[in-house]
C-alpha cells in the first residue's frame, strides 16, 4: 500500500466517474466485484486489476482514459518529486487547510514526525475548544491529508502522518498548489501510469 495512492485515490475515483459517467462506472464496479470481490477504490490501489477491467470496456483506449483522469487530479514531476494539484476540490481542501493556522500547524508538525490523535488535539486545543480541535484534526484525516502511519507491534496508539514534504501555493493566474512529497513518485501505482 502506498501513501501517495491513499492520498490521491478518492479524487482519482471521482475523476473516473466524471469522465466515464455513472452508468459506465456502475458496470465497472459490478465487474470488479464479480471477478475480484473488490470495490473501485480497492482496485485502483491494486492498479493492474483496475486497468484489466477497464481494458474489457475500452480496449487499448483504457490508457488514454487513465492518463486523462490522472492529469485531471495532478501533474507529477519526477525530477523534482513534486505534484501540481489540478483537481479543484483537492486544491480547495489543501488551500483551506493551509490558511487555517491550527490545521497548518498539524500539517507542518506531521511533515516531520507522526503524531497521535491526542497529541494533535492537545497541540491546537490552546487556540480553541477540544471539540473544535478534534473536528479540525478529523477533517484532515477524512480528507486524507493525514493518514495512519504503519503500525509496529509495540505501538499502542495509532500515529498519523502525511506524505507532504513541503508545499508552495502560488497566485499568478489563479491559485496553483505544488507539493513536494516524501515518498518517491515511482512508488505510486497511480502515478506510475503516467511517469513510467
Amino acid at each position, binding site marked *: 500500500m502506498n501513501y501517495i495512492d491513499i492520498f490521491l485515490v478518492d479524487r482519482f475515483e471521482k475523476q473516473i466517474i466524471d469522465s466515464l459517467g455513472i452508468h459506465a462506472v456502475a458496470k465497472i464496479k459490478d465487474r470488479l466485484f464479480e471477478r475480484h470481490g473488490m470495490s473501485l477504490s480497492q482496485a485502483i490501489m491494486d492498479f493492474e486489476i483496475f486497468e484489466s477491467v477497464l481494458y474489457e470496456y475500452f480496449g487499448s483506449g483504457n490508457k488514454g482514459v487513465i492518463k486523462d483522469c490522472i492529469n485531471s487530479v495532478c501533474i507529477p514531476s519526477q525530477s523534482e518529486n513534486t505534484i501540481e494539484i489540478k483537481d479543484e476540490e483537492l486544491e480547495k481542501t489543501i488551500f483551506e487547510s*493551509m*490558511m487555517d493556522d491550527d490545521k497548518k500547524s498539524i500539517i507542518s508538525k506531521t511533515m516531520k514526525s507522526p503524531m497521535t490523535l491526542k497529541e494533535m488535539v492537545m497541540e491546537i486545543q490552546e487556540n480553541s475548544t477540544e471539540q473544535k480541535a478534534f473536528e479540525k484534526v478529523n477533517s484532515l484525516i477524512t480528507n486524507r491529508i493525514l493518514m495512519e502511519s504503519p503500525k509496529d507491534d509495540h505501538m499502542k496508539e495509532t500515529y498519523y502522518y502525511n506524505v507532504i514534504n513541503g508545499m*508552495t501555493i502560488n497566485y499568478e493566474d489563479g491559485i496553483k498548489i505544488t507539493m513536494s512529497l516524501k515518498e518517491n513518485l515511482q512508488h505510486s501505482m497511480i502515478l506510475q501510469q503516467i511517469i513510467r
Partner: protein
Amino acid sequence: MLTVILKDQELDTIDSRLENKKLIPVMFEMEQTSLKNTHFKKNNKGQILLISEDKVIVDLVKSFYNDKVMNEIYKMLKEKPLTRKEVADETGKCTSIYRKMDEMVTSGLVMELNEKSNYRGKTRFTNTFTKLGITFTYEGEGVELALNPKIIKECAITGGITNELH
C-alpha cells in the same frame, strides 16, 4: 544576492535600497525597519523575486489569498494599469473597491504608477508583484514574490538606479 548599479553610488545592493525604503516605497509605510530573512534573487525566468520569511509579509500575502475583492482587483490590474475609478466601474462596487484599493496600496500589494504625463489626469495603479507565492515546510513558512517589471522600472526612475540588475 543582487547588486544594483546606482547613479549616486551611495547604495550598492537592492537590500540596502530595501532598508532605505525606496524600492517598494508603499510597503514600508508599514514602518517595517528590519524584515526577517528578506532578500532579492533573480530566478531562471529572469524574474526578480522578493524572498522573505518575515511574518508581516507572510501575513500580508495570506490576507490577500483570503480576500475575494483583493483577488478581483489583482486580476484586473494584471491585465493593465487602471485608475481607481476604472477599477470601481468595472466591478460595479464603488466604496468598497476604493477602500480595498487604499488597503492594497498601503500594504504594498498595489502601487501608483509614477507616470510623467498623467493618464487622463488620474493616477493609474498596478500590481507590485506578478506572482505571490507562499512556501510551507516543517521549518516554517515564507513567501516568494515576483516583482512586476513595471514597478522595477518605476523604482529605477524614482530611486536613481541606472537600470542594471545583475
